[in-house]
Every structure is written in C-alpha cells, then in structure tokens.
C-alpha cells in the first residue's frame, strides 16, 4: 500500500515531465504534420542552460531558492525558445512544401547536430549540480516504509499543472490560439484570411521549445545530473506519450505522458524494472490496435 502510494507520486512526477515534452511533439505535428525529432534535443539543451544558470547564480551569490528557480526558468525559456525558432527557420522552413520525408530527415540531422554541438562545447562528461531543492515531506509510514514526497516532485507537479492551465487558455481563448488552430485545419485558407502562417508556425515551435525548457529545468532540479545524451531517451518516451494520447491532441499528450509515467513506475516496483520499457510499448501497441488515432485523437476524415 505504502509502496503503491510512493510509486503513484514517482509516476506522476515522471509523467508530468514526459507530458511537457510530448506537447511539443504534438503541437508541431498538429500544425505542419511532421515529427520534430530534434525536440528531445531541444529539451537537452535547456537542461544545459539550466545547469549553467544555476552555476552562474551560485557564483553571483544568489542563495534564495525560489528566486534562483524563477530566474533560471526565465533564462532557460528565453534561450530555448530562440533555439526552437532557429531550428524551425534553418531546418524546416526551407523544406516546407517539399515531400513529407524531407523535413523528417532534416529533423534527424538537426537532432544529431544539437547532440554533437553540446558534446563538443560542453564535453562528453556528465554535468552535475549540487542539489537545489533538498528534503521532502514524510507523508505516512506503513509497516516501516515511509512514503516521501520530495519538494522537487511537488514543484514539478505544480509547475506542470499551472502551465497546462495557462496553455489551455492560450490555445482556446486568445487570438494567437485561434490563428494556431486555423493553421492546423487549413493553411491555405488561413493565409487567404490574412494571417501570417510562417509567423504562427514559428511561434508554435517557440512555444513547444519553451515547454521543453521548463521540463529541462525541472529535470535538472530533480535528478541533478545532465549529459548531452538525455534528449534521446526522453524524446522517444515523450513521442510515445504523444502517440498514445493521440498525436495532434494537447490534452492527449499530457494524458499519454502521465500514463507512461505511471505504467513505468508501477511496473518497475511490482513486476520487474527489467521489462519496464517492454510493458510501456506493449500497452502502446494495444492502445493503437483498438484506437488507431490514440486515446484522445480524432481520426482524420477525408472530405470528398
């Protein structure tokens, strides 16, 4: 019972991070119909910016944890959005209107480029920071097992909830949200109505990158260890989350992320950590067999 509660906490935390990254995949797919394989590496870059930020703040003598967190978050979001914009401008925009495969290959190239750039400039070694948020709350003890909620886990869940709220508002209520949704439906028609499609797509990439940046900062706070390779595994998992939830659907991405986080946590604790990924991907296959467009995805209807 205590173990289940602990794993629920761990799973939700992990799932929140997957979900944040998955939104970037799903949004880009929704608007231009391509998988942005460099997205996992954007997340990795943001984790490095976070490490740099924390080290810088420590050097400047900023000792207040909340202030430090807010500053690093702003810094990471700002820089990572620029990365998101640049990647779109350099690697995808010139290929718009060509075959579907061209931007896909370009995305894989971008992913390799970002990984190697970080490896060469930052070194291949693991970059650690001393724990930022230490401690936690001991919730309850059953049979000698203490369920513990670390402050960093609390932070991740709260920040994710707040972001999701803000994001839903942005997409459903603002004029940018409307432009974005109309680009999703029909780019030509949107352009005819006087909306700058390129700008909307650029902003979408920046938004996705900003969410990945938040995930990067959270992971840096939570695990404290970053290397240039983390984007790969996280990217694959987040992509899976996006597909499971229904690619193109925002709540779907979050739901998929949480599901995968929970499946991993419970499988690792009760069955075997060894077959954790097998379980995750088996459930993905099963879900897609019965709901080919994902849990919350709507099938594309071809209008004749």
């Amino acid at each position, binding site marked *: 019972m205590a173990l289940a509660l602990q794993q629920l906490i761990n799973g939700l935390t992990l799932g929140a991070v997957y979900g944040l990254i998955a939104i970037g995949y799903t949004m880009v797919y929704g608007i231009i119909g391509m998988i942005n394989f460099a997205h996992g590496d954007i997340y990795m870059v943001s984790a490095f910016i976070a490490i740099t930020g924390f080290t810088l703040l420590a050097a400047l003598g900023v000792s207040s944890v909340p202030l430090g967190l807010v500053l690093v978050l702003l810094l990471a979001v700002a820089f990572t959005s620029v990365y998101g914009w640049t990647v779109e401008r350099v690697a995808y925009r010139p290929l718009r209107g060509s075959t579907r495969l061209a931007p896909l290959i370009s995305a894989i190239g971008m992913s390799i480029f970002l990984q190697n750039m970080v490896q060469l400039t930052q070194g291949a070694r693991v970059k650690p920071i001393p724990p930022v948020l230490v401690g936690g709350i001991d919730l309850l003890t059953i049979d000698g097992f203490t369920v513990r909620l670390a402050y960093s886990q609390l932070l991740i869940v709260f920040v994710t909830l707040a972001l999701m709220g803000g994001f839903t508002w942005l997409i459903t209520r603002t004029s940018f949200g409307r432009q974005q949704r109309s680009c999703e439906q029909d780019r030509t028609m949107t352009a005819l109505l006087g909306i700058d499609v390129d700008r909307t797509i650029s902003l979408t990439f920046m938004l996705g990158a900003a969410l990945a940046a938040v995930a990067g900062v959270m992971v840096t706070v939570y*695990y404290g260890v970053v290397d240039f390779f983390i984007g790969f595994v996280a990217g694959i998992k987040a992509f899976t989350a996006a597909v499971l939830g229904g690619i193109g659907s925002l709540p779907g991405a979050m739901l998929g992320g949480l599901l995968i986080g929970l499946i991993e946590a419970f499988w690792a604790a009760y069955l075997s*950590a060894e077959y954790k990924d097998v379980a995750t991907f088996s459930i993905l296959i099963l879900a897609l067999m019965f709901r080919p467009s994902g849990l919350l995805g709507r099938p594309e209807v071809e209008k004749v």
Partner: protein
Amino acid sequence: MKTRILAAGFGLLSLAATSAWADILVAIAGPMTGQYASAGDQIRKGAELAVADINAKGGVLGQKLKLEIGDDACDPKQAVSVANTMVNKKIAFMHGHWCSSSTIPASEVYNEAQIVMATVSTNPQVTERGLKNIFRIMGRDDQQGVVAGNYLVDHFKGKKIAVVDDKSAYGKGLADEIAKAMEARGVKPALRESITAGEKDYSGLVSKLKSAGIEVLAFGGYHTEVALILRQAQQAGLKLTVMGGDTMTNSELVTAAGPMADNVLFTFAPDPRKNPAAAAVVKKFRDAKVEPEGYVMYAYAAMQLFAEAAQKAKSTKYKDLEKALREGSFDTVIGKLSFDAKGDNKLPGFMVYQWKGGQYDYVK
C-alpha cells in the same frame, strides 16, 4: 632540361622510398563519443603519451608509431564497422575495444584479418572463444565477481543485499558472478533486478529496494547509473552502500553523486599509480595535466606491450607478434605482463577500493 627530368625522377624515387618506409600503425578503439565517452578519453590520453614516448626513444624496429583512433560509442554494430576500417588501414596492433559487447564482435574481424589486440574488457567470453589474437591486460569479471561477493559476505553479515545489473554484457556478467560467489558462501541475494542503462529515473528501483529493506546494493554496470541511483536513494531517504566493478574508478561518479560517492565500494585491479616502477610516467601525465586514473595507464601499458613484443619478435607480422606475446613477459607501467593459453594475463586480479572525499584507495 635533361637534368631537370632526372631531378624530378629522383624526387619521385625518394617519395616512393619514404612511403615504403611508412610508420607502423597502431590503433585504439572505444567510446570516444556517446555516454561512456569519458572512458574513451582516458584511453586516448594514455595511448597518445605512450606513442609519443616510444617515438621519442626511437620508435619500434627503427620505425615510428602512428596512432589511429576508432570510435565505437560502445555500440556493437559500430564496433564491427570500426574494426573493418582499421583492418583496411592495415594496423599492426589494436588496443580495444572498451565495452565487452563491442570487443566480442569486433575481435572476430581482427582475428580474421590476423591482427593482435590487447583489451581491457572484462567479460569472460572475450577470451573464452578460442581466438588466438586477443590478449587481456585486465582481470576477468568472474575473478572480479568472486572478490566482490566474498567481500560482501565477510563484511555485511546479516544485512540484506540486492544484486542489480544494467543488462549490458559487462554489467550482467559481473552481477551474475557476484550473485554466484555469494550463493557459494550460503548467502542468497535478497533481490535480483535489472535496469535499463541510459535512463534518468530509477525511483522505481529505489522504492523497491526501500520496501525490501535493502542496505547493500551490488551493482553490475557503469558509474553514471550508480550516481543517479545514489542521488535518488538519498531523496527517498534510503541509506545505501554500493558495491560495483572497475567502471566505478571514473571520477565522474564523484562529481555526479557528490558526497554520496563515499558509499561506493568497488573492485579494481591494483592501482597502477601505486606501482613504484611507473612513478616517472605518472609524473609525466600529471605534468601534462592528465590524472592517470582508470584506463589511462592501461592504454599506456598496451602500447608498451606492443612495442616490446615487436622488438622481441623483430617483426610486426601477426604470427611473430602472437608468438612473442604468448611466450614472453613484458615490463609495463601496470606491472609484468605475461599471458596464458587463452590470452588472460597472470597479474593478481582485483582489490576492493572505496571512494573517500573524491579519492579512491584500498579499503581499510
């Protein structure tokens, strides 16, 4: 006009002559990129200095050594393609690969092309397949596992011990041997698990260890995962002692795990830095701002091994080199190397070490 053509002719001839007296190519291969790139870096630094030193002393058989570097990123498929590239370059000697899972497939390629190799990979299978071209300058996992298993049984009586591996050829091999050694002494591991290397979240494993009341974790795998497990155990309020293998020599463990690294014990070959005969080389490395930790001295020793064997054999041909290595004994910075019929070296195997304040030393 005629003299000019003659001169040109001589020029061509001398060009041809220099290329006929080409350098001897020696190679290293390992994870120069990828998540274990820091080990590749150690190998490269060790081999570079060794080649420079050997060349400064006049080279091997009057020829200079030239170092080729192959990057397998610890990927078995890439290792095979690196091996083929090296074979095409006609190298005389290979030091590598590093990951057992790379060494095993790559060694088939070198064996077919008749190239001798010296490796630090510790999986028993490396020398158990009857290949004649492979020489191991480090101990084997089965020796390592016995030392670690016995230490755990002797020093952690009555405590619950879990054995976990990372599913790699190296990690699983080591963990199996530790478990076997413990069982031979009548102690059954309280938990046997595997994890996936390269992930960041091991909270599932940590919760499981915590609920099973585990105090000691014997881990077959690499330092990156140990650092993460230790940090997450601390966050979950679990005090854990870890027993690992030779990969824990990497000082990255200390940067990543912080003070938690003091809870790490590991088995490793006797520290080559403590070898009095190697003092001059150690100083040279430190002067060049390279700490000769982990695999640095082994890479240096591998190059020495080749140089001495080639001098003894008076040849760099496969047959002569292989015979010289099999029969001779060689003074290197890691001690006197000589090999048995399988290609395993006869140096004393492993010691138990402990990290303390960023340094490791024999455990007291």
